[in-house]
């Protein structure tokens, strides 16, 4: 342990911070890049269909697209309101 090492360990290295930020960012940008371009439109149309039967808001619908070597998965998650029965026409 040299004198310099003592000072080095006393502060977090900015390089490791850079690496961590980049890894998160690059992973995120790679997944969004591979997403089909129709996703926002699909989300909109699905929302309209669901709205015919239940009073849901824009925020209550989540679409998640995942891709691995073998398959592509489209995950759809809709949170229905508590009193959804009353809203059915």
């Amino acid at each position, binding site marked *: 342990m040299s004198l310099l090492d003592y000072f080095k360990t006393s502060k977090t*290295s900015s390089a490791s911070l850079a690496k961590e*930020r980049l890894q998160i960012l690059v992973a995120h940008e790679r997944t969004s890049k591979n997403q089909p371009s129709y996703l926002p439109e699909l989300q909109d149309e699905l929302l309209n269909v669901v709205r015919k039967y239940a009073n849901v808001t824009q925020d209550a619908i989540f679409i998640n697209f995942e891709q691995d070597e073998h398959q592509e998965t489209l995950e759809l998650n809709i949170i229905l309101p508590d009193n959804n029965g009353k809203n059915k026409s």
Partner: protein
Amino acid sequence: MARIIVVTSGKGGVGKTTTSAAIAMGLAKKGHKTAVIDFDVGLRNLDLIMGCERRVVYDFINVVNGEATLHQALIKDKNCSQLYILPASQTRDKDALSKEGVEKVLDELSKTFKYIVCDSPAGIEKGAHLAMYFADDAFVVTNPEVSSVRDSDRMLGLMSSKSRRAEQNLEPIKEYLLLSRYSPERVKLGEMLSVEDVQEILSLHLLGVIPESKSVLNASNAGIPIILDEKSDAGQAYADIVARYLGEEKPHRFIEDKKGFFGKLFGGK
């Protein structure tokens, strides 16, 4: 058939033109007939780095538009008879380049040249897109710095989807990492991303590390490609890169901190 190499990065100022000039000269000096093309229409600089700015008569756009023949526009390098430079136009804007025009020029060059080095402009606009579109190999010049790494990743994404090889379902462009302006001292202090960090993030094959070096500015001041400065560390790094690209086994250099007296005193081990 020529092998088409694009030197690209996304981000500006990382060393694309320095690299284009160096590797084109390196390939030519190994005896391969090489052409280097400046794709930065409106902001040409390759001529300055190659030291032929006063010999430019016709340019890339003139050839594309049929106003000059390729033979008239190509500038023979003063240091190496195997090397030719095709400068970009300084006055026209980027729309002057078309995919068909570029393809025509590349096809003609392919008949007589072994390597064609395309010096890409920064950004992801038309000039950068056309520079990489016909490429067989890509030299991705990256600095160990967050914005440069991110932009390189973006460029890699574009090459895997928007290039000729991608569109025609051919074998993908071979991508290589050239990590430039590297400072082993700062890596050791934890102030700079290491070569392993960058490789891990971009998952690219490392062709070489070019150390941060004062000789690069001296070379560009004089208009002499840095690879001709055989005494400089950066020049040697580029010579290694060319050799590795041509299939020679060369151990990587300039990655470790070469410690001086003070380094030994404070650096332990």
